[in-house]
């Protein structure tokens, strides 16, 4: 009864999800120490609200939002703040973080759900709650959720899309949430719809998760979820990219340089929808999340419910990593994830997976571009990556701009498909960096 939804472009990396797709979410015991960075989202870092030697409880605010496009951070264990200072951050730089020594008591602040049932509450009130809970997009981009839920009045939203594509290989965190927290997640979707006054909710799931599709079709047949429709998506990377998902489901396109709200859509990830429910109905801030730990050097792969701030080392050792054969540790999926240099870097709000990898993409012989056109076919934005890379190699950033380098979303499809093994994403990143500089310079004049 459902047509298959898809977009033009993309690649088909092997899914590699079998190891963890059938494993229940397991709670990882809280570590002895957590490191909670003040910047876990796009936008201004949170402003520190605690100092050394303070005693904190779970859910206590460690940092207040540093502006509108920002989000507060909360303690994920109870105990003593042992230090506030620069720590390794999974995004690769040193960032101010709060280190808390766990006292093991798991004392919590009093969680206060929304005073009125959400169906009767005013949208502003719910957004306030979500903002206070420090919720950010949990699919990877970590854009503060309350910003997405407060579109300007001249941009009406008619469609909410819940992103259950999980198109990155290996990751199964969202898949497990859909199976185990189906009702909660669907309630979260309804809350989002209520806030935005949208008329339609879509939940997009790739066809390689038939069990999730079955569970959700069953639920949405019920009367209370009748406003939700299921979009069965073709299993293709990057099906879960916001722009691709919108295009696949609604046939609309987000204008270049714009946001999904410019075409009447808001996309939220499965994990975000669940966390919204948790914040609104239980009053819990975002202090834990589901992380898939898997990969070729992980002997006991798992889907773990992890406190934010847990060092990735704890997760890796819990899942019995084979250190000797590990060459690379990736936070996120293999297509867009970040290679980690430091095992003490903590799990943050947008960490969907930790992968231990044996095989390398570095040191592989790179050939000159043979113009095979694979990158052009793969690019979901329909750019010409090989030409862009050539422009960037020669420092012709302005030419790269006329070939729309700033529309690149760094999904990695081009570099994945390249038979010459040219690291196209690297050139895109360099080119975008310079192009942004040129653009700002021009705007100043």
């Amino acid at each position: 009864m459902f047509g298959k939804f898809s977009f033009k472009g993309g690649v088909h990396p092997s899914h590699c999800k079998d190891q963890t797709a059938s494993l229940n979410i397991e709670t990882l015991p809280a570590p002895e120490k957590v490191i909670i960075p003040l910047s876990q989202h796009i936008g201004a870092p949170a402003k520190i609200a605690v100092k050394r030697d303070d005693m904190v409880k779970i859910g206590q605010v460690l940092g207040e939002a540093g502006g509108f496009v920002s989000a507060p951070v909360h303690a994920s264990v109870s105990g003593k703040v042992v230090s506030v200072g620069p720590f390794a951050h999974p995004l690769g730089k040193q960032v101010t973080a709060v280190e808390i020594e766990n006292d093991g008591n798991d004392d919590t602040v009093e969680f206060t759900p929304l005073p009125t049932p959400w169906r009767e509450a005013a949208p502003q009130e719910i957004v306030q709650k979500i903002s206070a809970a420090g919720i950010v997009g949990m699919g990877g981009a970590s854009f503060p959720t309350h910003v997405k839920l407060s579109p300007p009045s001249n941009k009406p939203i008619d469609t909410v899309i819940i992103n259950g594509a999980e198109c990155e290989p290996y990751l199964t965190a969202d898949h497990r949430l859909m199976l185990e927290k189906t009702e909660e997640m669907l309630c979260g979707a309804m809350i989002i719809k209520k806030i935005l006054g949208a008329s339609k909710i879509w939940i997009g799931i790739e066809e390689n998760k038939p069990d999730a599709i079955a569970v959700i079709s069953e639920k949405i047949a019920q009367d209370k979820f009748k406003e939700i429709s299921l979009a069965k998506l073709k299993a293709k990377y990057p099906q879960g990219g916001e722009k691709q998902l919108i295009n696949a489901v609604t046939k609309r396109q987000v204008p270049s340089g714009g946001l999904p709200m410019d075409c009447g859509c808001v996309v939220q990830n499965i994990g975000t929808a669940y966390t919204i429910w948790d914040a609104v109905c239980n009053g819990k801030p975002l202090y834990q999340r589901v992380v898939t730990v898997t990969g070729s050097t992980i002997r006991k792969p798992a889907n773990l419910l992890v406190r934010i701030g847990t060092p990735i080392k704890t997760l890796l050792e819990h899942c019995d990593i084979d250190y000797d054969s590990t060459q690379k540790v990736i936070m996120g999926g293999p297509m867009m994830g970040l290679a980690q240099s430091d095992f003490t870097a903590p799990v943050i709000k947008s960490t969907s997976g930790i992968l231990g990898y044996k095989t390398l993409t570095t040191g592989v012989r790179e050939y000159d571009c043979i113009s095979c056109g694979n990158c052009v076919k793969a690019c979901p934005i329909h750019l010409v990556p090989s030409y862009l890379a050539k422009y960037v190699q020669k420092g012709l950033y302005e030419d790269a701009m006329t070939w729309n380098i700033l529309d690149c979303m760094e999904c990695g499809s081009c570099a994945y498909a390249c038979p010459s093994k040219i690291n196209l994403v690297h050139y895109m990143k360099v080119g975008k960096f310079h192009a942004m500089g040129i653009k700002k310079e021009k705007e100043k004049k």
Partner: protein
Amino acid sequence: MSSEQKLLHISTSPHTKYQETVPSIMLSVCLALIPAFAASIYFFGLRALVLTVVCVVTCLATEWVIVRVLLKRPSTLGDFSALVTAMLLAFNLPPDLPPWMAVIGSIFAIGVVKWAFGGLGHNFINPALAGRAFLMASYAAPMTIFGPPRTGTMSGLSESTLASLTNKVDGISGATPLPAFNKIMELLRNESTQASELQFHIIDFQETISHLFFGNVGGCIGETSAAALILGAIFLWYKHIIGLRVPVLFIGTVFLLSWIFNGTGSFFTSEALLIPVYQIFAGGLMLGALYMATDMVTSPITPMGKAIFGIGCGLLAFTIRKFGGYPEGVSYSILLMNLAVPMLDRYNRPKIYGKVHTNA
């Protein structure tokens, strides 16, 4: 080893890559050429084998000398691109060409066309075709003398047809399919006063086309057997190495134009429909459209550019065949379109997501 001592590798995403590499693509092209190679040995005997081996050895040696001796770089023989050039060049030579000419063609293809411009990925025209064009310009006569295949006739026409034609047209018994066809057309035009009688009944199209399809006709080494070439191309298409756009539009354009300008004065007689079929299986069209026009380096990268490239090749090939001095126009059509590739890419960029329309 403890985690503290462990050094990890850092690199940009993506951390996983598609298994196809440049050497694996080139090797697949070589494999795809094997059926046509086998067919050429079957139809032309040892001389086809000798010529191909000469081309392969010379091309690889030229590549090695340039890369190792002149440029002092790591060897590039392992990417198999020189092997592809060598095989395609050999396939474009007549079986009776003196081997030393093949040596010169190979050195020109690799040395000048490929390496003078920077090697694999930088040549602006197809090296094998450029080698052939160079030999055509230098040794026109040996390049256009074809020995007959082991079975069948040069032109694929039956013995009886040829016998009835030899007293009317000169030199038809030694002609390859395309010149033979042109000569018959000329004959018909001259006798056009009573054309209604003569018409095309003298050509047994069914038999000729089957000969053209399976390959027992005269011609260049690799172009005789359309069946073997198509077989290899299906393999390449299945492996996503060649797309259908260029070959289908190339062959389709030649087919369509040969049908529209079929010269019989009507469109729906059996001759009018068989002439274009004859045209697409005769000469180097299959080899050119399936293996040369689809060469990655010298064809456009954008989908629209590819389409225009394919149609342009077809248009030029038909024009040269129909109105030009050469009976065969495929290689020049591809070479000419190769030159247009940078422009085709520049003006046919794909429509970018989000630039077309907005719903806001």
